[in-house]
């Protein structure tokens, strides 16, 4: 018999905010040592109250807009109770009854064609800390507690592991380009709900949940293993399937049932009285919409039309900072293809020399634009432009001032000035003769001719010195 795979996903994504969700501690990526980013609030000390980080709401709404969700204008927080040492308050603040986004949809392109995956909801919540086990003791690190997460819950619409991985890659590039999450290692974690049923059947089979996986490769492997286990159970009656929570063991490539104790907990959810309901009014929603970056597909298409290569588009789409830099200089008047090459080839090359990547790039759109404009205007050649760019990227110098200082501008270039002087001498033989015969004032006519040729941009002292030398 042929079987159909039915999969639903719950994906936790860590948001790229400067501070945690309910306190002003920096995100855990800022932490160098365990418990670096911890305050009385996120370590559960009495007396502290959660204060909502507005940016978290904005990023969650942006994610909802990208996934075509309804944005709920009234959204509330609930408490989920359980004891674990990495959870300082013994409850997690999350959203149960009024999540921020519902009813979304995302379209996937896979080898099987175009597929729509329905998004059930997106909700905001805080992350837990981390336990570090060493010798006789376990240690608690609260750097990650209260780091903001969104959880994206799909309907059971996936029919293959390939679709799941395509979806996750799509989320990743969307969220990176939208500045929602860096989606680094471990910043995206998935719970996979999986069942199989005879092809054509409308009823769902027995469902198992594989918890907490972060590598896409592991997710794919886990789905393939679990699907086969279900099919074997149905086909050959190898075992009786039960609804349960399982974990995937990377080393053996198998899934194992978790203890029941962990799965049958009653979390005693109830509303958090410390956090007032959040009302998203029209004005705020419009503001968030206005700041929302273009949808990934649309953005990629625009780059393609501008003649940017597919490889470059991939680099741009996956890096919000870099694509924004390009969009900014294009808005100032730089050609998109040209701009992409300045960033992805020239800037990247400079950084690579120091073992850095584009993620380390620190340059304002204004400075990059100034360099490109000087080249485009013909004030300097491209080589000079690259020299200036190195100084800007490495030492953050002012490009125009640096260009003058180094005499890279043609108008300050001695050889260029010499050419103008030679021309003036050739075209004004009478003045040259007068000067040589002792009429010193005759040099003024030659000087004037040079200045006219240089459109007044030359340094008078330099011209004068060079002119006197030539006339000796």
């Amino acid at each position, binding site marked *: 018999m042929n079987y159909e795979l039915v999969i639903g996903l719950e994906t936790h994504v860590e948001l790229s905010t400067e501070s945690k969700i309910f306190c002003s501690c920096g995100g855990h990526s800022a932490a160098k040592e365990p418990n670096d980013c911890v305050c009385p609030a996120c370590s559960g000390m009495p007396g502290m*109250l959660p204060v909502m980080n507005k940016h978290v709401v904005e990023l969650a709404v942006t994610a909802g807009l990208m996934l075509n969700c309804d944005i709920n204008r009234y959204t509330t927080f609930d408490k989920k*109770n359980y004891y674990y040492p990495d959870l300082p308050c013994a409850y997690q603040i999350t959203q149960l009854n009024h999540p921020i986004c519902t009813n979304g949809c995302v379209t996937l392109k896979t080898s099987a064609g175009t597929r729509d995956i329905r998004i059930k909801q997106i909700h905001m919540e805080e992350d837990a800390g981390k336990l570090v086990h060493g010798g006789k003791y376990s240690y608690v690190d609260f750097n990650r507690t209260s780091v903001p997460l969104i959880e994206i819950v799909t309907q059971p619409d996936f029919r293959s592991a390939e679709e799941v991985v395509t979806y996750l890659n799509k989320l990743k590039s969307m969220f990176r380009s939208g500045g929602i999450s860096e989606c680094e290692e471990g910043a995206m974690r998935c719970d996979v709900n999986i069942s199989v049923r005879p092809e054509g059947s409308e009823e769902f089979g027995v469902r198992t949940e594989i918890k907490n996986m972060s590598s896409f490769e592991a997710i794919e492997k886990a789905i393939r293993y679990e699907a086969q286990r279900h099919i074997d159970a149905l086909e050959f009656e190898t075992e009786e399937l039960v609804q349960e929570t399982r974990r995937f063991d990377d080393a053996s490539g198998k899934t194992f049932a978790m203890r029941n104790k962990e799965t049958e907990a009653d979390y005693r959810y*109830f509303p958090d*009285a410390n956090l007032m309901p959040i009302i998203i009014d029209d004005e705020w929603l419009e503001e968030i919409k206005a700041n929302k970056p273009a949808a990934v597909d649309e953005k990629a298409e625009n780059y393609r039309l501008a003649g940017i290569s597919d490889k470059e588009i991939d680099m741009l789409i996956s890096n919000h900072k870099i694509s924004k830099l390009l969009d900014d200089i294009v808005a100032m008047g730089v050609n998109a293809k040209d701009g992409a090459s300045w960033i992805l080839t020239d800037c990247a090359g400079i950084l690579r020399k120091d073992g850095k990547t584009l993620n380390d790039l620190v340059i304002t759109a204004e400075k990059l634009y100034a360099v490109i404009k000087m080249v485009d205007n013909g004030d300097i050649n491209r080589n000079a432009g690259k020299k200036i760019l190195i100084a800007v990227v490495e030492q953050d110098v002012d490009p125009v001032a640096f260009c003058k200082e180094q005499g890279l501008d043609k108008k300050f270039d001695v050889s260029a000035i010499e050419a103008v002087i030679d021309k003036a001498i050739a075209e004004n033989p009478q003045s040259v003769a007068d000067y040589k015969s002792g009429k010193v004032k005759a040099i003024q006519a030659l000087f004037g001719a040079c200045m006219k040729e240089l459109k007044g941009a030359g340094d008078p002292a330099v011209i004068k010195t060079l002119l006197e030398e030539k006339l000796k």
Partner: protein
Amino acid sequence: MNYYKTKIGNGNIAVDDTILVKDAEAAAGSKMLTGFKPLFSAEAVTRLENKGYQIAGKTNVGEFGLDLLGEFSYGAEADGVLKGAAAEAVANGEVKAALAVDMNGSARRAAAVSGVDFLKPTYGTVSRYGVISCAASGEQIGVYAKNANGIKDIMDVIAGHDEKDGTSLRNESYDYSFTAVSGKKVAIIKELSEKADAETKARINAFADSLRASGVTVEEISFDVFDTANTAWQILMTAETCNNISRYDGVKFGHRAKEYKNIDELYVNSRTEGFNFLTKAVIMYGSDVLSKNRYEACYDKSLKVRRVLAEKFEELIKQYDAILTPASSKTAYEAYNIHEAFGKVFNESAFTALANLIGIPALVCSGVQLMGKHFSEGLLLGLADAVERKGE
């Protein structure tokens, strides 16, 4: 009587042990928090200090403020006649005023027993930043003083918006000037008067006569919501308390059991040793009303009762400016066995729970209680002041 859990200095303000003062041990009357020293002061404390007030010390409270009037404070259990430490410190002139958390009636009962004034202001007017929180949706810092003027002085300083508390109302300041009382209408609540003893009833009548002498109309009416309000509040209060004190688990600070073999035993043993019987009863009750099978019938229903009673009170207060009730069923309490505590507190909270449930202000004065609509503190203080000036 020993007022203090921790003596701080020769100040004029006492602060109950559920309110934080930087670096001063804050145990909320519990063994569980023994040795806990906060890194910051409550917003109300900071505001007072900024105005030149000084904190004398942390007064004893019953564990997490859950008992009748502070009798089950770890290491300071009461015997004989029961009195609240902060209320007594004010009554005896030890301090000018005291701050206490009004959560399940203990502060108001203590004021009635000691004969001092206590105001539980409108929910959201005084920041809860720095309160060892139990029932977030209804607890509020209140003020003990000898009279209405003393309360006004402190409220003028501590009330107002605080961005560190998400439930703090946006108002920058409030007006606690006394409202003129002549021509106002006050209702005595029949159902609550009937629950009180003869001496308490006599206090209600004396207070009513004194109000009438100031031109206030006082009449007795029936308004039978207080038992319902109490049941709803006990459900919300125990659930929220159970949740908020679950962070005291022996892992991070406070008491940790000496004997444990694994993390489960660390939790169970530390909490078994750290909490008293009453707190454990509240935890059991609170976690039961939040459990899957009971949530809708208990917790969710109580939230609905809160909304309905708020509307009912609003209707009533269109006809009357304030209500006059006992703050407790009697004028004095004797020490008793802790195993009876849950029932005793439950019964007594019928007088106090409505104000916590729907967030209205309540003022205890001359051993009785006045309640009014949100932000009616100026009127309640005016009524109290009228009676207090008559008594002088």
